[in-house]
């Protein structure tokens, strides 16, 4: 049963930010609502004012250029990302991730900004976008700022946003040469959230040495997290199967999963190890083929 609320429908971002400034802790923002409405119906979230930004088309865009990289507006749907030609060409892992995200119905209505702001540790976009070194642009009545995605999540369902701030855009740097990213989650139904998930981005130099590695774990802690020990195993080395194995072991040790009805803590650590090894290898193999 959803509690009553006063429904506010801003006609512009400026108006939305003014409403947020006015109502601060007494309001929630809804975009696609694919996650929020569930927790509202369960009574876990109730709010006096609901600010609906789904109709804000000024935040509905996908832009790319080789200098500035990719910019996706907050109200862009998952389906638009999945079907974007430029994203398929420049960031195929994002299309792959979207195919794995819930169902077509959810992707048709749910938005990237809503997903990131909801801050579910089991969400699909955050690990992949973090591996891609993405940044979130947030705005308030006072101005705008950007937050690297790997500093955006502070705790379970908590972000670094202040009351009054709104996710406006996600920004992804243009792909570096000899770089590739791979993502996989482990689940029983394809449309389910991951029991755990791993995204790995690998950059190699001309000689095949690992220049940069970003390994991001989903649903393996209260937020999506970088596995920095595992990254350190790979950086500066000629990559081999033995190193991928070692990186997997490091990731399985540094993650902080909890056990639940889907999987025990021990099993989650095991899965993190396996997926880290596989995704690091997959990203490396793809990076070798990249120009």
């Amino acid at each position, binding site marked *: 049963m959803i509690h009553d609320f006063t429904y506010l429908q801003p006609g512009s971002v400026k108006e939305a930010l003014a409403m947020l400034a006015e109502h601060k802790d007494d309001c929630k923002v809804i975009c696609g609502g694919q996650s929020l409405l569930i927790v509202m119906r369960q009574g876990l979230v109730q709010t006096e004012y609901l600010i609906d930004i789904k109709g804000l088309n000024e935040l509905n865009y996908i832009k790319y250029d080789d200098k500035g990289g990719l910019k996706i507006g907050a109200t862009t749907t998952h389906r638009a990302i999945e079907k974007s030609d430029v994203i398929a060409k420049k960031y195929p892992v994002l299309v792959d991730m979207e195919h794995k995200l819930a169902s077509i119905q959810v992707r048709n*209505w749910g938005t990237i900004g809503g997903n990131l702001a909801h801050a579910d540790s089991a969400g699909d976009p955050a690990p992949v976008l973090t591996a891609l070194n993405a940044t979130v642009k947030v705005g308030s009545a006072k101005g705008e700022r950007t937050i690297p995605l790997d500093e955006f999540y502070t705790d379970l369902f908590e972000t670094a946003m202040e009351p009054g701030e709104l996710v406006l855009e996600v920004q992804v740097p243009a792909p570096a040469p000899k770089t590739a990213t791979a993502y996989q989650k482990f689940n029983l139904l394809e449309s389910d959230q991951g029991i755990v998930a791993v995204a790995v981005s690998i950059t190699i130099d001309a000689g095949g040495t690992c220049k940069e590695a970003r390994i991001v774990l989903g649903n393996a802690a209260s937020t999506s997290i970088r596995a920095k020990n595992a990254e350190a195993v790979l950086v500066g080395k000629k990559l081999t199967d033995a190193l991928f194995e070692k990186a997997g072991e490091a990731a399985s040790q540094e993650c902080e999963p909890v056990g639940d009805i889907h999987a025990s803590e021990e099993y989650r650590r095991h899965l993190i190890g396996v997926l880290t090894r596989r995704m690091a290898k997959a990203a490396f193999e793809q990076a070798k083929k990249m120009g």
Partner: protein
Amino acid sequence: MEKKLLRFTVNEAPYEIYVNPKTLLVEAIRDHVGLTGTKRGCETVSCGACTVMVDGMAVKGCSVLAMQVDGMKITTVEGLEKNGKLDPIQTAFLDEGAFQCGFCTSGMLMSAKAFLDETPKPKDEMEIRRAMEGNLCRCTGYNAIIRAIDAVAKGNYREDKQ
């Protein structure tokens, strides 16, 4: 609670209704418009029994605020039949026996319809299965449903073949 005016089109008929803004799309369709073909199932965005089309896109009616479809065109299972003639996907479901208790059927039909409109020639059966992953059936199983969609995709229900 101040009620809000919602204007939308359901199966090509225009409606103007006043709703509590917390009303979900499935509630607006069932309780305000009075079309009960769209089912309330899990109500946690899992089962897909509440699937309807909004401007041609399949969405789950249990997870969309009715106010968000203001000005949009909704198609429910009741809207598939045109001039007394079933939509090909409905005939195919009948021919393949693609239901048992029938509770998931309207949602299945709407997902199938949206998919076929968007992808008239799916490249393989797996593409159909993937497109239907947001709809759960707990009795018949999926094979008959996939066969029905596949039969329509293969053109077995085109006018000239009837």
